[in-house]
């Protein structure tokens, strides 16, 4: 018990003393997740809106596929992209394995289906009069997509924040594709796994507390947005 309480105190010490190593890991983690999120949101939000607004052959298959991908284990994504990016893989020549770009790719692939699905749900659950009103006002298909997304912006923001929560907390793909290189690809989750196995429980705990704080902030924001939708 003493060991645990002392570790907590030490962890808090690291946080309040602004330990350089600790915050470097946090910064790397947040940076990688934000880049992955930005790309996934730029693609996923319009695609989700388009899926919801269009009727095309294979729509239900696509939606089922996206639902399946939402539940895909992160190590599976890590495994697939490890195979693709490793030196002997088809994309090996780019030399991306164990770089932040590889982690960004893994997280992007992880959260893209989530953002597409939640953006599509946001549009699907919008007021049924919205689309016909815009059509009757003479909106073309691009104006229709952008104005519908604008009208359901709170729900879209929830989709994006959910994606961020998933990206920042994932460990499988980051570990397998990033390699946990200090100052480069060491994210909060990979560092927690490594430091704890090395016996550096305090650093792991400090990172855990910060990860929890970030997750809490995201959830708090989500709740506030839910309140306004």
């Amino acid at each position: 018990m003493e060991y645990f309480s002392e570790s907590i105190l030490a962890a808090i010490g690291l946080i309040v003393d602004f330990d350089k190593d600790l915050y470097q890991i946090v910064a790397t983690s947040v940076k990688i997740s934000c880049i992955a999120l930005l790309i996934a949101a730029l693609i996923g939000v319009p695609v989700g809106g388009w899926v919801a607004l269009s009727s095309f052959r294979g729509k239900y298959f696509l939606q089922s596929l996206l639902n399946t991908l939402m539940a895909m284990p992160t190590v599976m994504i890590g495994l697939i992209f490890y195979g693709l990016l490793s030196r002997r893989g088809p994309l090996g020549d780019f030399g991306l394995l164990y770089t932040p770009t590889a982690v960004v790719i893994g997280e992007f692939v992880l959260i893209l289906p989530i953002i597409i699905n939640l953006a599509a749900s946001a549009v699907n659950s919008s007021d049924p009069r919205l689309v016909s009103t815009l059509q009757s006002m003479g909106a073309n298909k691009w104006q229709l997509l952008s104005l519908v997304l604008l009208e359901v912006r709170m729900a879209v923001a929830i989709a994006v924040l959910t994606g961020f929560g998933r990206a920042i907390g994932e460990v499988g793909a980051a570990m397998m594709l990033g390699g946990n290189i200090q100052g480069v690809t060491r994210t909060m989750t990979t560092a927690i796994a490594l430091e704890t196995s090395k016996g550096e429980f305090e650093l792991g705990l400090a990172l855990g507390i910060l990860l929890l704080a970030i997750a809490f902030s995201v959830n708090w924001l989500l709740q506030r947005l839910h309140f306004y939708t």
Partner: protein
Amino acid sequence: MTPLYRIANLVFAYRQHPAIEIESLDIEFGSVSALIGPNGSGKSTLLSLLAFLLMPDNGFIEYRGENAVKSRSLDLRRRVGLVTQNPYLFNGSVLQNIELGLKLRGVRKRLRKKISSASLKRVGLGEYKDLDVRELSGGQAQRVALARTLALDPEVLLFDEPFSYLDRSSVAMVERLISDFRDHPEKSVVFTTHDSVHGIAIADREIGLVNGKLGRSPLVNVFHGYIKSGRFITSKITVLLPEKVSWGSCLAVEPSEIVLSLKPLNTSIRNVFSGRVVSILEDQGRVRMTVEAGETFHALITYEALKQMGFSLGQSLWLGFKSTAVKVF
């Protein structure tokens, strides 16, 4: 002259259930047409087809000689203006809502503001332009939706149940707007209503719709006469009117508002007449009773009511309706 709309062999179905089946219908250019029918008769669906929001499953709709196909729907939608029964307003101010359609057409900001303000004034909401739409009442919201459509200067105004959600003064304003629209030789109006009397009163032509098919125009219980001291006097009966009515030469009573009874009516109903059943017919899933009570009245009742009351041909009965059930035009 090419009609405004030409409809031929039109079929539109919701999940295999035909909602509209019209063999042939022309709507004339420069006219005011009323689509009259009970709730669920397909009026709003037909209006959506006329607004090119829905496309026919079979048959065709021609707009001013042009076949309305999906690839042309955006252009056609921009030429017609639809005001729905329960309009959707976008988050933001009243003015932003009016401006949106103009913005979608690439109209410059200064001109947008000018047109939108003028359009708001036309519907009597000039002072509401900066108000958040969430603060509007149902009637005001419908007027904003009307202003939003008028701002786009459509060739045809398609109006779904314009009189359902409006108060008395707004109804007069909308009637005036429709009349202004009619005065313009290049403009036409098509509106839906379940209130046959209102439809007949302001339209050049009534189009009856029953279960998605063209039916006869429900012109019944309309009597000619004059008003004197709060009463409408025909050559045969005298009807008590609501207090505010002071002008009109036709009186109409909705068939579903008429109460029939074998005993004298001891309720708040002010207009009571004794009469005799002259016909009992089936009519759109209900029973149409024709009663001779000075004038010939048609009343719509349910099968259950017919069974319970045991009405039969030639029987003497009492017929009544409230003064508020009366429309004078």
